[in-house]
């Protein structure tokens, strides 16, 4: 019997509401608004109340895909990452650092955004980093 409640922050809008995700036997099955979150105080909107529903969607991407003969084909992480790193290096060497660009994300965490821009700036050597702040 495994039932856990995990306190976290909403992934939809910029309000930053807090809730508990209910985990029953390894699956997220529900959302309970956190009464003591300073923003949401135990309230949520319709999106927040149903935020658990997409997590286990059968349409989720579950493995890396690589375009082979025109079609996206499942491959291992090693193959996908080696291919990407190699191509990026080739393109950088042939055309310069600024021929590579990155779209960071308003959806991933701060730590992840930090790593994306660090990768772009320190590894690739370009300031071509932007995200959809304007959308």
């Amino acid at each position, binding site marked *: 019997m495994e039932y856990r409640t995990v306190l976290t*922050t909403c*992934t*939809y809008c*910029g*309000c*930053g*509401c807090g809730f508990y*995700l209910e985990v029953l036997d390894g*699956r997220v099955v529900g959302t309970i608004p956190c009464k003591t979150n300073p923003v*949401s105080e135990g309230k949520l909107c*319709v*999106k927040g109340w149903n*935020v658990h*529903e*997409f*997590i286990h969607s059968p*349409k*989720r*991407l579950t493995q*890396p895909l*690589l*375009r082979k003969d025109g079609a*996206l084909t499942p491959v291992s*992480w090693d193959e*996908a*990452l080696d*291919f*990407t*790193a190699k*191509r*990026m290096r080739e*393109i950088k060497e042939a055309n310069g650092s*600024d*021929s590579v*660009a*990155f779209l960071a994300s*308003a*959806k*991933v*965490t*701060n*730590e*992840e*955004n*930090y*790593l994306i*821009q660090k*990768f772009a*700036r*320190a*590894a*690739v*050597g370009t300031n071509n*980093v*932007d*995200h*959809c*702040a*304007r*959308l």
Partner: protein
Amino acid sequence: MTNSIVELENADCILVIGSNTTSSHPLVATRIFRAKARGAKIVVADPRFVQLANKADLYMRHKLGTDVALINGMMNVILSNGWHKQDFVDERTEGFEEFRKVVEQYTPERVSEITGVSAEDIRTAADWYANAKAGSIVYCMGITQHTTGVDNVKTLANLSMLTGHIGRESTGVNPLRGQNNVQGACDMGGLPNVYPGYQPVNVAANKEKFEKAWNAKLSDKVGLTIPGVLEGLSAGSVKAVVIVGENPMVSDPDVHHVEKALKNAELLVVQDIFLTPTAELAHVVLPGASFAEKDGTFSNTERRVQRVRKAVEPVGDAREDWKIFQDLSTRFGYKMEYGSPAEIMAEISSVTPSYGGISFERLEGDGLLWPCPSAEHPGTKFLHQGKFSRGRGLFHAIEYKPPAEQIDAEYPFWLSTGRIHVHYHTGTMTRNSPTLHKEMPEGFLEVNPVDARALGVKSGDAVRVASRRGEVVIKVDITARVTQGTVFMPFHFVETCANLLTNPANDPIAKIPEYKVCAVQLEKAL
């Protein structure tokens, strides 16, 4: 936001402009309802009759893209009645005289002609806001998504400085950020011109600091924004693009143009949790983790940094995004070996002054509002107390400019786009949520009853909407929420993609596209 969300509750007048708060930021609307219950005056200015307009003490339906004129009109009234705070203007601002000269031209009568709002309503709004003990401005994409987006924002800043409604509790200029971590993505340097903490890349001292911290040679050349990247792809100067958790094939203006640009890439890498229309174009698709499958932090619209906690393992072979980047970076030849997101945050706080005092331990409880420069600092509820970040607050003298695209005989309707309450952005998550999908399975076009009669359409009929860039066939919803001559379409639905129609013309400074205004033609679809 200059001020925290909860402070709205104690404002005495709230001007909500270009924000459909109950749909797009429902938990901010909660505080506005509470202010209203306390007796605050709520002024809503929006071309569309949004839900909050129904609860407003004053609703101003200004024409699309006339925000600068409307606010200048309010400031004209404030100045001519002497309702402005001269002390505040003298002590804390500069540029007032040039500003005053421009605003004097915007008499309520003239503004009424531009905006369609009565002079009387402009006077009332000016009176309530200026003479409130604490006046607060709340705005959203209705202000920013214009070719005059920066002008619009500066005009609101002018209004708050003129009346001294900034730098105090329950006042301020409060943009509602659309995405859960758009604030954080900016804070972390997800922008072409700044390192984390808004430290410009073209300042030598910053470059040196980060070269030392990261042990790498850095570029001092400001990078490309998204529109610049798309141009670069079309021109061939940009060859490789890595897109993380974004879907420009639905979210960006003039999607046909976006598609052509992305197809030009020699290497397109997309990291996402669903196979989005953008991912379908990629050479490599990397399955990332959803927010429920990783640890980290998000920064909300009021600058509050809060914890995200892992509830379950990523589905299938999907991986936490931070692990993907560091693996990729190491394979690329730049080693990254973080043990956890907490370790990454430790590095962030060491190079980002506004996050200097933030650590995972300190985020337990209510999180922290940056700036939080040191481990002892309690965080900052509202900004600009006593002094503006830049020293003196700068008034900008701003003239009204009409939207980039105008209606004409061929394209006689204004189109505006936005969100609806059950969906989020390009619908990648919400449309895969059965409950939300059931509430609103498809897109629609709001048409005024008078226009609907002229077109000979009933609610539920299909119409063909075309702009100079593309066309969409979509069902009509007949409603007085939109005014005659204007139609509205949500942008969540790829099948009826609003961004096939929108105008990629953007603000010269912020590069934000004019999603809120373009010209279209309508006809009944057979």
